[in-house]
């Protein structure tokens, strides 16, 4: 890619409705269930802050809501706070798009980083597939696959 940023795309099909998926992405109580106990807090208005807080009260990530168009598109400016070596990578951008397709919803997460050699990329790319597998399973069966982060 030649536009100087590095982008990662994660896509999954979930047998649910856009409204239910939107609620799953923006309701703290629901998020906690598939995001390994993390609390994602925001009022989801454009320009409002959001933060991710671990079960023991640590703010690991934060940023602002860049776009909010329910139930189609949610975009966040994203800064990592917890590990200094990852925080040094600066701001990332994360867009979540919901698209209805025959009895299911295609959820596409695009995470963009200003640096190609970003360490945050490695941390995030290991996380999203597990989070999405959990989210899919929770919406389709009511149960999650993984209760904790493998190896963590």
């Amino acid at each position: 890619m030649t536009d100087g940023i590095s982008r990662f795309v994660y896509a999954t099909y979930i047998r649910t409705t856009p409204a239910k998926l939107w609620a799953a992405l923006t309701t703290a109580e629901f998020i906690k269930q598939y995001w390994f106990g993390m609390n994602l807090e925001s009022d989801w208005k454009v320009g409002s802050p959001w933060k991710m807080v671990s079960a023991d009260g640590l703010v690991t990530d934060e940023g602002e809501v860049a776009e909010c168009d329910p139930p189609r598109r949610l975009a966040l400016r994203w800064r990592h706070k917890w590990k200094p070596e990852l925080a040094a990578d600066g701001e990332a951008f994360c867009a979540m798009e919901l698209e209805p397709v025959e009895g299911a919803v295609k959820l596409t997460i695009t995470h963009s980083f200003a640096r190609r050699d970003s360490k945050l990329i490695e941390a995030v790319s290991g996380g999203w597939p597990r989070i999405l597998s959990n989210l899919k399973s929770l919406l389709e069966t009511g149960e999650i696959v993984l209760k904790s982060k493998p190896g963590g």
Partner: protein
Amino acid sequence: MSMDAVFRALADPVRRRLLDRLHALNGQTLSELCEGLDMTRQAVTKHLAILEAANLVASQKRGREKLHFINPVPINDIAERWIGKFDAPRLAALAALKRKLEEGKGHD
């Protein structure tokens, strides 16, 4: 998304090679992916379409170009269904051992 489609898409060395290339450098155009492959553009397009239909590749438009991204989610679903149930750390140790012993050999 059918898991049959994922396994069928993975059951081809050219398609696995395309995924390896996207893993090494994500977000490539068709022309970039064709470089160094002894295949016609049409053949690569066809393989990419199969990978995309299986949701192993996601594409996004940038201007007139189409960029291809590896989508690890279906592979992760497979891993969680069959591997997560077993002892993942020990399997990782075995995989590391195999890699070390076989270093330098191809991985198809």
